[in-house]
């Protein structure tokens, strides 16, 4: 299979969906001639033209609100928010409008739309180019939230997101765009939304992760394997709807669980996973459900020493695994 970078897989997924379905359009800031600040849409404007690859003003609420309207009238928009950090002007459109349209109209309206946004730190992006924003949206019924970790999943999940009849938020860790490569087959495969994957089988501790942390969890599992600790890694892939069964099956087997996420610890997505495990797998637990997560400061600091302090990395996860293994 051809080896591709994470961003190549996303670009291919976008392009192939636009070829397959002429109602698919792309809109966002700098997505046209420039091809996006990360080049996720590079070449699409040249191939599909002004009508289907739309450079918008710097107006995130408009990008999402217009996508909602376009989705009502027969278009499948794929909106790009340039950085997840800048999604908040569109929060009202996403939470009050997109998430509720089907429910509030009693299935009168559905919104087939995707909103892509690069998230995450470790790239010298500081407070406003590093945030993990998934927890704001996983809280909201009516939004699907996807965070792929491999090029294969990114392309397959993006296809599923675009073909889905409900709004999907698709968060891409920007540090992975060019640093992560993987096999991406040719042809029209999809990866279903709402399905987690065990990416490393093990017996003693379950590590639940997604996005960049899914890679770091695998590295951590390798590090502690030499010490005789057998780790099972579950890559969630879709945060909402959550594939509870895959998580619970693993925890019921291992009896211990650590959740790794880059977002601030307090009230982060891992808190919900921990609560579900506590409620539904308590009898199987041999230790506390623990979290390795970003510190509770209002953003990722810029200075490289401070940024390294903030970022969760394989060694920090490995340390968490060692402590949990000692129970």
């Amino acid at each position: 299979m051809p080896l591709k970078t994470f961003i190549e897989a996303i670009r291919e997924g976008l392009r192939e969906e636009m070829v397959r379905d002429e109602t698919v359009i792309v809109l966002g800031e700098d997505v046209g001639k420039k091809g996006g600040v990360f080049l996720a849409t590079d070449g699409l404007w040249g191939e599909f033209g002004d009508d289907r690859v739309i450079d918008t003003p710097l107006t995130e609420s408009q990008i999402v609100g217009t996508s909602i309207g376009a989705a009502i009238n027969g278009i499948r928009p794929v909106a790009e928010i340039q950085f997840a950090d800048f999604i908040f002007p569109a929060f009202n459109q996403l939470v009050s409008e997109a998430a509720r349209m089907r429910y509030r109209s009693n299935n009168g309206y559905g919104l087939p739309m995707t909103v892509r946004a690069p998230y995450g730190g470790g790239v010298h992006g500081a407070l406003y180019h590093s945030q993990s924003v998934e927890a704001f949206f996983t809280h909201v019924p009516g939004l699907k939230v996807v965070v792929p970790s491999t090029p294969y999943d990114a392309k397959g999940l993006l296809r599923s997101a675009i073909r889905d009849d409900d709004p999907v938020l698709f968060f891409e860790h920007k540090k992975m765009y060019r640093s992560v490569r993987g096999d991406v087959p040719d042809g029209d495969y999809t990866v279903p939304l709402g399905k987690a994957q065990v990416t490393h089988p093990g017996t003693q501790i379950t590590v639940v992760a997604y996005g960049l942390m899914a890679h770091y969890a695998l590295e951590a599992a390798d590090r502690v394997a030499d010490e005789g600790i057998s780790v099972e890694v579950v890559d969630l892939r879709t945060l909402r709807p959550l594939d509870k069964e895959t998580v619970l099956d693993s925890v019921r087997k291992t009896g211990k669980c650590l959740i790794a996420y880059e977002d601030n610890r307090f009230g982060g997505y891992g808190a919900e996973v921990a609560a579900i495990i506590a409620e539904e797998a308590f009898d199987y637990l041999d230790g506390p459900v623990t979290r390795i997560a970003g510190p509770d400061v209002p953003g990722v600091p810029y200075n490289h020493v401070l940024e390294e302090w903030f970022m969760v990395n394989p060694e920090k996860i490995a340390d968490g695994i060692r402590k949990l293994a000692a129970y």
Partner: protein
Amino acid sequence: MAVSSKPAAASKPGSHLGDAVGLTDDDLLEMYRLVALARAVDERMWILNRAGRIPFVISGQGHEGAQVGIAWALEKGKDWIAPFYRSIATCLTFGMSPRDILTAQYATASDPSSGGRQMPGHYGSHEHNLVSVSSPVATQLLHAVGIALAAKIRKTGQVAMTSMGEGSSNQGDVHEGLNFAAIHKLPFIFVVENNGYAISVPMAKQVAGSSVWERASGYGIPGVVVDGEDVLACYKASRDAVARARAGDGPTLIEAKVTRLTAHSSDDQQTKYRSEEELAAEKGRDALPKFRAQLVDAGILTPEAEERINASITRDVDDATDYAESQPDPDPATAMKWVFAEDWPGETPPPWGMGGGDG
């Protein structure tokens, strides 16, 4: 560009009032019926509220003439409207029925807007190209702009209109949407039904520059101000805007100066911030008696026609009330449906299950 309207010239009996704007006598009678029907439905809502039958009313009284005149210029079943909570006459003009409006007041299972999920006033109908209304104001402008964008991309020839009050027009989404619609010359019409108040706050404290229509010039699009109590002036402004939109000439902003004959809602007491003199003067601007007088003077609304229309309205409103009264509440077993198109195993019911309450 500004087009200020003057009251339609008084027509002599037997003359053709609609000729100047291309409307037939039948059109005018139907428009009158819609204005009067919307008023009658609205008045019934207040009676039902005062009688303790429905908990909340948000009213369109004083806006009906503008709504019927403007919506009449759009093509039912083809064009789109993203309405707001006062848009009863708009929704009736675009195909919703008095039963549709009153089942929303009672929040019945059969309420086509939301199946009883939304507050009254949050109308919507996919069947009639009316976008579902929410409570955060002005968000719907972007939806109409998106619908217009899709119409342009798909070359459907559709026009999308949205309406809201002048208070809502101050929201940031309005700026973002007008800017985008103007850049792309979208087939979009922005209607501001200016009744002078954002709940209790008067124009002077919410709209700098004292008009909304003049803001259009900042986007390089036509801004039009009309007497919103003059049905035919509203129709004409809307007809011109629709023609521009269909010709690919882009959006138009129409500010219709209407009145608010009732309090903001059934939970508001407007005499706290509006004087008796002001309220009496506003009543004198009401489109319903003015439009009636126009049609009577023109010999179009004959005594027979009026009797027929009034009887049909009484019948329709009584029927809608009886129907809504008889309709069952939604079943709690359905309350988790339509979060998504399909049911998802991850969306678990609460520990108390999906049965009805004990009350």
